[in-house]
């Protein structure tokens, strides 16, 4: 679980601010993610979740503030760079290619190639994809299938598996349960739990559903107006409290404006 002080944290963001012209997306975000922790990040539309994710994943730089991985300050230059440091994001649109097979999706941009001619080593990729999915408990009929044929839950699982498979140790999940049935959602939550417990992976999970957050996360942060205004271990909070915080905050915002 999360270390009480900042020393054991996998990822720390300090004073992150980002504006787009006149729009302030992030005012001052201070966030930490402990080793083997699942952190739930909730917040209304426009609270700055997407911007924060994009910054933490190297998609765009913050205007001010710093990011530390294992206590080391890093400048995330690109998605590729962030990935090389072990940070990877499973975006809402999943970054899966419908027209490609499951295993080609899993190995997209990190293909296994033969030597000396750089042809795709399809047989090796197929076998590894199969083994890996079995290993983390993702059930897929045939890794040759086009991704377009799979269900929302399977697609999400493949996207997550792909990130983890490529040695991501800090995983950012952008609403992994959006538009998913209860059974499929449970499968994803189960996968998240297994990754934390068995794979030494730290996870930030953006979610709308407080029940899901409380079910799987160790700690919950609430982002509001570009700042984190609430930070508690899930064991010490409840759906009621989270709802109250959000509603109180909304009311305050309405009165303030």
């Amino acid at each position, binding site marked *: 679980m999360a270390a009480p002080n900042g020393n054991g944290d996998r990822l720390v963001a300090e004073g992150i601010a980002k504006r787009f012209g006149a729009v302030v997306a992030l005012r001052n975000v201070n966030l930490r993610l402990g080793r083997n922790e699942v952190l739930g990040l909730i917040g209304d539309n426009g609270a700055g979740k997407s911007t924060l994710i994009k910054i933490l994943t190297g998609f765009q730089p913050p205007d001010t503030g710093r990011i530390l991985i294992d206590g080391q300050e890093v400048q995330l230059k690109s998605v590729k760079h962030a990935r090389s440091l072990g940070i990877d994001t499973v975006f809402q649109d999943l970054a899966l290619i419908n027209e*490609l097979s499951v295993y080609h999706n899993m190995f*997209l941009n990190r293909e296994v190639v033969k030597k000396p001619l750089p042809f*795709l080593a*399809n047989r090796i990729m197929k076998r590894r994809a199969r083994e890996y999915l079995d290993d983390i408990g993702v059930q897929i009929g045939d890794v040759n299938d086009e991704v377009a044929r799979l269900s929302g839950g399977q697609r999400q699982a493949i996207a997550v598996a792909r990130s983890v498979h490529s040695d991501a140790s800090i995983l950012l999940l952008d609403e992994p349960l959006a538009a998913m049935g209860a059974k499929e959602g449970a499968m994803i939550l189960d996968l998240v739990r297994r990754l934390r417990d068995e794979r030494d992976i730290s996870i930030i999970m953006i979610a709308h559903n407080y029940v899901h957050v409380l079910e799987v996360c160790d700690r919950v942060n609430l982002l509001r107006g570009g700042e984190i205004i609430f930070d508690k271990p899930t064991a010490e909070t409840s759906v009621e409290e989270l709802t109250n915080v959000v509603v109180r905050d909304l009311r305050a915002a309405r009165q303030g404006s």
Partner: protein
Amino acid sequence: MAQPTTEPEAPAAPEESVLRRGGAATAILRAFVVRREASIVLVAIALVIYFQSVNSNFLSAGNLPVIAQFVAAAAIIAAGEVMLMIGGEIDLSVGQVFALSPFIMFFAMEDYGLPFAFAVVAALLVSAFIGLVNGTITCLLGVPSFITTLGTLFLINGLTLTISDGFPRAVPDVSVANIFGAANYSEFIWAVVIILAVHTVLRLTPWGLHTVAGGGNPLGAREAGVRVNYVKIGNFMLCSVLAGLTGILEAFQIDSIDPLAGGTGIMFQAISAAVIGGTALAGGSGTVIGALVGALVLGILRNGFTLQGVDAFTFDLILGIAILVAMILNVYLSRMRRQGKV
């Protein structure tokens, strides 16, 4: 192929699809639905049988080189167009690169005294540069490739007419002329080799995978770290180089360098071949082998109807219908594939 699902219950698993449950006949039928190239091969075979039955000269030693030459030019350029179309782009300027390239070769030898091999390389480098310009304007400045290449179409045509003064030139007298398109079937052999090479790149290399990814889901591919623009610009260059090479081969074949050669005619044939072969304009899917078969179908249709005395007007009518039918079938089949019915 369009067997309706009569069972009221949903299929238990995606594998339990309509056609897979049948015997050998449906297995073959299924192969033709799933393999894009297969249905068009069937059409090509049917056309050959028909034209041979109405005119025994169709498959004669005199006629076959005529078909082969027509097919070759369209097929080589189509290979490049397929790579672009899979990426969601198109190049309308190929016909003008086709005309410009042999002139570059000619002037490199005539005015700069370069040996033939270097002159060809120079022509292909200029072609590649045009592809680079097309790709850069499209990918980095955000102009749709349809517009970009429409612009370069006119620009290159003007350039060719300017440097040639609008007059044809004789092809250089070189010993390797037969290899470079002068001999019967030489261009066709080039076409087969190039088709196989581009097919290999598309299906068996990371480059091909990234081409499909960039066309199928550009944002997703980018998020996965695929250099979508880099791959696209590369494919623009490939397409232009193939057009330039075809221009040279064709010049040797007809024994003249004509500033009015190629043009929009060869461009539309190439794109038609790609489309008939099973490549969609929307990006994400396509087949290079299919483009060769598409070019074959076009060539067989054109030649067959010419032998029968059908005039050019009627031919365009038939071509139009062929493209429409091919596209409707294509859209319908890919929808079936997507829904997991086959």
